[in-house]
């Protein structure tokens, strides 16, 4: 149509998703992991919008995309609060130090 098809957007979304996932795996800082989650959500969100644009999903895709953004904001707020609590208790933001439940 425009010369840019659905696949292109999906691939970008996949790359963002993969990068977000990589953040989860690689980062030790809890806040960095949060950033990875944001990337994950954005990758998924891009897929919603791409399908909204190119398939019959239409307005529904945009509404869901909006909800995802809002929920991501809420998630970020709570997760950050948890991270701060974590920091208060451990004096560290390293998620690898969260091992109390192991033993």
């Amino acid at each position, binding site marked *: 149509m425009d010369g840019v098809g659905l696949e292109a957007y999906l691939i970008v979304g996949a790359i963002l998703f993969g990068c977000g*996932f990589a953040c*989860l*795996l*690689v980062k030790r800082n809890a806040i960095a992991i949060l950033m990875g989650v944001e990337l994950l959500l954005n990758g998924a969100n891009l897929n919603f919008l791409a399908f909204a644009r190119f398939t019959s999903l239409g307005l529904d895709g945009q509404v869901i995309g909006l909800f995802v953004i809002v929920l991501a904001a809420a998630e970020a707020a709570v997760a950050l609060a948890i991270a701060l609590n974590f920091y208060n208790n451990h004096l560290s933001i390293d*998620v690898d130090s969260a*091992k109390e439940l192991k033993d």
Partner: protein
Amino acid sequence: MPETAETSHLIVRNLLTAAWLLPLAAFIAQVYAVECWSNRLSRASGLLGCAAIGGSLVLSLLAVAFFPSGSGSAHTADDGSNHAAVDAEHEAHPSATPAALAGRYYTLARFGDSRLELGWYVDSLTLVLFVVIGLIASCVHVFSLGYLDDERTEDYRDEHAHAGDEQPVSRAGRFHLFFAYLSLFCFSMFGLVLAGNLLQVFAFWELVGFCSYLLIGFYRERPSAVRAANKAILVNRVGDFGFLIGLAVLWTSVGTLQFATEVDSKGVTASGLFEQVRGDGQLELSDDSKSVVLQRHLEAGDEPAPTRPTIAYTLFVLAGLGIVAGSIGKSAQFPLQTWLPDAMEGPTPVSALVHSATMVAAGVYLVARCYPLLAPEVLLVVAYVGAATLFIGATIALTATELKQVLAFSTISQLGYMMLALGVGGWGAGVFHLSTHAFFKSLLFLSAGSVILACHHEQRLDRLGGLRHRLPWTAAAMLIGTLAVTGVGIPNPWAPGYSLALSGFHSKDMVLASALAFVRLNPLHSLLYLVPLAGAGITAVYMFRLWLKVFVGRPADQHVFEHAKESPPVVLIPLAVLAFFSVFSAVGGESSWLYRGLVTSEPAFVAASSTSSAIWPITHPGHEEIHAAHGAAGLMVWLVAMAGAGIAIWIFGYQPFSADELRATFPRLRQFLLDRWRFDALYDLAVVQPVLRISRQAIAIDRTVIDPLLHGASRLLVQLAGWGRRIDELLVDGAVVGIGAWTWRSGERLRRLQSGQLRQYVLWLGLSVVVLFGVVTWMRPG
């Protein structure tokens, strides 16, 4: 005087109810209040008991005053003013039920039409007994204040009871307890007399029995007292068993135990026992003479049912026999007389009140009360039982060696007279003798008590003697009692009622007259006249023997004699009162107020001579026949009694033979009598030994059969449990433990995966997704 019948009715009821309940209140107060608030040295309990029974007496007398004299509620008061026309008066009562007031306090239970009630039944018999019981009980209470004075201590030494080391038992005094028992007994006795139905009678019957048990066993440290109490209660059970059977038969067949016909506020009538059985006076037999037709009361306008309810004649006889069996037990009649002599283990006032005057008379009272329910055959049995009893009791009394024993057998004998009188149709004679006997026998017992008190509980006849110098008042009182029981007097054969004589003469005279009249009508049963006649003589012998041995002659034991001294006034005053009544209560014989009052309660059918029987033809004398025989009978019995008295005075007063010679005269007979006709041995052999043998065998069976069986079963169970345990341990536990251990090991292995590294988990997640995707792709068809 009350204006209306209903008012007097109510007043009498309330007075008697109060008289009945006063001793109960006293009992409760004595048991709880006195026990809690007073000490053992206090006389409060006794005074309270005296006050209560005195109050009861006064209330009873008031009730007599208010009772519509000589008639039921249907009659006007002018009947009471007639002193002479005894017979005519009775003929004026066509109803089978005597003049009586009845009612109920409340209903205990209701089964369909049948009801169990707490009721009351008052006729002149009730009233007389209330007065007699109240009077005697008052005297006994007062007497007891003196007699049991030594119980008011914290440390009572009982010389007759021994602990293991031959030392006298030392215990706290039981003054208050004695009076509590007495009060309870008085309450029970009043209730028994007042009861409105047979079940209530039975309840109080058992209650007096229980009181008797308590009082016989008052000295419970003494093994003999305990034995006597047990014997009394057990022997009474035999009679009570019969009584219960009788009750059951009546309840089943007649459907009520109520004495009186009852009309409630709606006008509905519930026929009582007497009306149902006797109807218009005589038993109405069915056509085949095999059953008695019951006279149910009919509602106004009701048609008589085509088939009226009946009771089989044999059942009717059985019911009567059951009631009589109860009487035999309670009144110590042949063959259950053996408990009464042993009951003398109780304190002497108890013997005076319970075991001579009142409780043992309850059997006679029951027969008298249930007279309409007794078939002629049953009455015959009663008569023979009475005859046998009076003879056995009199003969044993001849050889009895202890003061109270003599009196006990005398009581048995006199009760036999009463039964005999009832059995031969002399209803009035029986209850008349019951009343007079109550006075003089309690007088005798209290005199004996006075002697015992004076002689420090020495009551063996061969240890006493010559005490009239020491105890003149007691001796006089006892002499009056002896004269009364022997029936001494100056007879007037033409008008026997106006003889110059003591009470015993009049009543025994009546009994003998009834017996003579009966024998005249039924010559087959001549024995029923001869035996009591002989008994009268024997009575005179043993009673004078007793008096002479105690109060005349040389003192057998100088020590006892020296220490004996006249009892205090508190003991002597009751003696005086009772002596007065013993002398004067029956003045006038048939015309005396006592007799005339009593016969107003007599069932109507007794008044006329009647011949009725389904099995044996028996003719009962009416008043006329008895009256006709009165003169002859009185003269005969006077002669016999005088002869007996003379023999006794000759033998024991002038003592022509020594005691050893006397003993050697009829050794076997004497031993037979000393063994009390070997009834105890017989019972021991017939009942006690078999029971013991069966018990031993039961024990043996228990030990040899049942115990091994149980042990074997338990051992088997233990074995089985052992196997079960092994299975449990091997299979079940093994499985459970094995699963647990496997889970543990698996958990330990899986635990290594649980690194706690969140990011590692995410790594596994992603890897799993990729691997799964690869697998799915590889497996994708096409």
